[in-house]
């Protein structure tokens, strides 16, 4: 088990290394940090001093090594735009994004899986047809449009829910949470629906097709021939087998939720990392972009590991017969 985790972590290293290289290349070759930091008027001496200070006169690998060393410690330098440490800025914004992504993921799973099971079991009921039509809409409408339509309906016309921001947040150490206030919870509803809808419909369709596949297998027929109640067959035998492939896809989708919160955060002016990233792109604020890129890569790598562990927990065939792998 431990060996399994370690081997997975080792496999993640090349990925993280490559992403760091891209981030660093962005740092070194996109835009000219010296020009950005010095502004319009500077002397050659001032320029050379800054180049030395930033280490830009060093060979490529030395620069990259320094960058890596700093990155491992969460150190990405100062934001060009805000002149504050990138790590502070990201830490400040992370709770907003993570709470939004978490709520959206729970929503996608808690609604998507039961809808998938239902439509897989009762293929021809009118409710199934309705769900499938609904899911087509979810897949085909772009996220920003869904967000705007929700704002229009629930904020502008009905006036029930706020159209932007996080509402009141409570500070728990460095973590700011919107889960503990009424306005914070209300502010979460529309953005998390917007962010989770695509994943919800995707998970529903995936669970549905897997469920239909599993229901045709011999072991389900044999379970019926043994006279097991439908409840045990559908929600025990069938659902468990359905979840094996669903875990992978759903896991990667949840990574996507964090990565692609950018659009939703922009539509709802949600003060998270995605909004910070978009603002940084506009201002060519490379340190923030580089740090964001690496963070997202880290999120994907972590989720991959968790998915593998879940797989391992669900499917006994992986546990035995491969030498503890």
């Amino acid at each position, binding site marked *: 088990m431990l060996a399994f985790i370690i081997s997975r972590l080792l496999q993640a290293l090349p990925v993280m290394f490559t992403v760091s290289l891209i981030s660093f290349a962005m740092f070194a070759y996109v835009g000219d940090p010296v020009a950005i930091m010095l502004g319009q008027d500077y002397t050659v001496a001032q320029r050379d001093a800054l180049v030395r200070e930033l280490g830009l006169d060093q060979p490529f690998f030395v620069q990259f090594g320094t960058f890596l060393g700093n990155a491992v410690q969460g150190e990405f330098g100062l934001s060009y735009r805000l002149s504050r440490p990138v790590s502070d800025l990201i830490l400040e914004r992370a709770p907003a994004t993570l709470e939004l992504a978490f709520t959206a993921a729970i929503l996608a799973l808690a609604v998507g899986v039961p809808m998938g099971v239902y439509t897989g079991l009762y293929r021809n009921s009118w409710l199934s047809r309705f769900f499938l039509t609904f899911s087509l809409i979810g897949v085909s409408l772009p996220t920003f449009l869904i967000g705007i339509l929700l704002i229009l309906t629930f904020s502008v016309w009905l006036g029930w829910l706020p159209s932007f921001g996080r509402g009141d947040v409570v500070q728990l150490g460095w973590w700011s949470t919107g889960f503990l206030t009424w306005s914070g919870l209300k502010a979460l509803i529309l953005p998390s629906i917007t962010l989770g809808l695509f994943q919800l419909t995707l998970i529903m369709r995936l669970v549905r097709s897997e469920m239909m596949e599993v229901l045709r297998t011999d072991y389900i027929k*044999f379970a*019926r*021939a043994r*006279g*097991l109640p439908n409840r045990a067959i559908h929600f025990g035998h069938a659902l*468990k087998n359905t979840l094996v492939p669903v875990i992978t896809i759903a896991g990667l989708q949840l990574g996507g939720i964090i990565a692609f919160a950018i659009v939703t955060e922009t539509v709802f002016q949600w003060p998270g990392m995605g909004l910070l990233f978009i603002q940084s792109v506009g201002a060519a604020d490379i340190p923030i972009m580089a740090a964001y890129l690496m963070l997202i890569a880290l999120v994907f790598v972590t989720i991959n590991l968790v998915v593998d562990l879940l797989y391992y927990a669900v499917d006994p065939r992986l546990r*035995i017969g491969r030498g503890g792998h």
Partner: protein
Amino acid sequence: MSLLDVKNLRVEFPTRRGTLVALDDVSFSIAPGEILGVVGESGAGKSMTGAAIIGLLEPPGRIAGGEIRLDGKRIDNLPYEEMRRIRGRQIGAIFQDPLTTLNPLYTIGRQLAETMTTHLPIGPGEARERAIGWLELVGIPAARERIDSYPHEFSGGMRQRVVIALALCAEPRLIVADEPTTALDVSIQAQVIALLKSLAREKGTAMMLVTHDMGVIAETADRVAVMYAGRIVEIGPVREVVKHANHPYAQGLMGSIPPLDRRVDRLQQIDGAMPRLSAIPPGCAYNPRCPQAFDRCRVQRPELMPAGATDAACWLHAP
């Protein structure tokens, strides 16, 4: 009185191009503790008959006529839930491929225990003890240690033993075994059949045993039914059918049967092929292949009629 009574069973598959009749006028019965062998070419309707009996025909297939009685009580028209209580408890089933019949994500102990707690008034602890007992009975070595193993940890033959335990563990009175050894290695087929037979005899369980193996039929069955194109063409005591078959198709099948102590694995080839369901010829369905066919065979369909010591659906035996 017989345990199972199938009368004039007709199974249809509505399709876009019209209704296919997969089983027509199938009648037979099985006495308590009796083993009925069922043989016939692939596609003859053997599996379909078994599926109809356990009430698990795959839609759109449906019973369109006739009746099935267990202990005199009709079971072909029961609501799903009532039939569910009969499956496993009164009628057990064994499928062909043990590699796919067990749920890969549940331990064999759990699958046994859930079957027993579903049907018998026992708790999980008792069920687990009995599960170990069943595994020992079907010949799984070190049953107590292996009860928490998953199906993939067993060989095909061992898995089929587990399947047999699963089919028998709620002590049904009838087992429908559909080619239980076809998917197994030839070297272990005989052991598994011997196990099945001895357990059935020991527990007094009746069995409908579908197989391709004429040797198995000869050694195991009390009576034999021969199926062709969705019908029973001959049925009677095993020795009679094997040695003195009266229907030309059955004679063809049995033609190669050597003395009972030698084994023949496959049915002898008969020239031609069984007709598809959509193209069953009028009269006797066997007439295009039958060396003894005459005029009547091509226009009028023969029903089962007494022929020697068996019943055969063949005009050669018309009174």
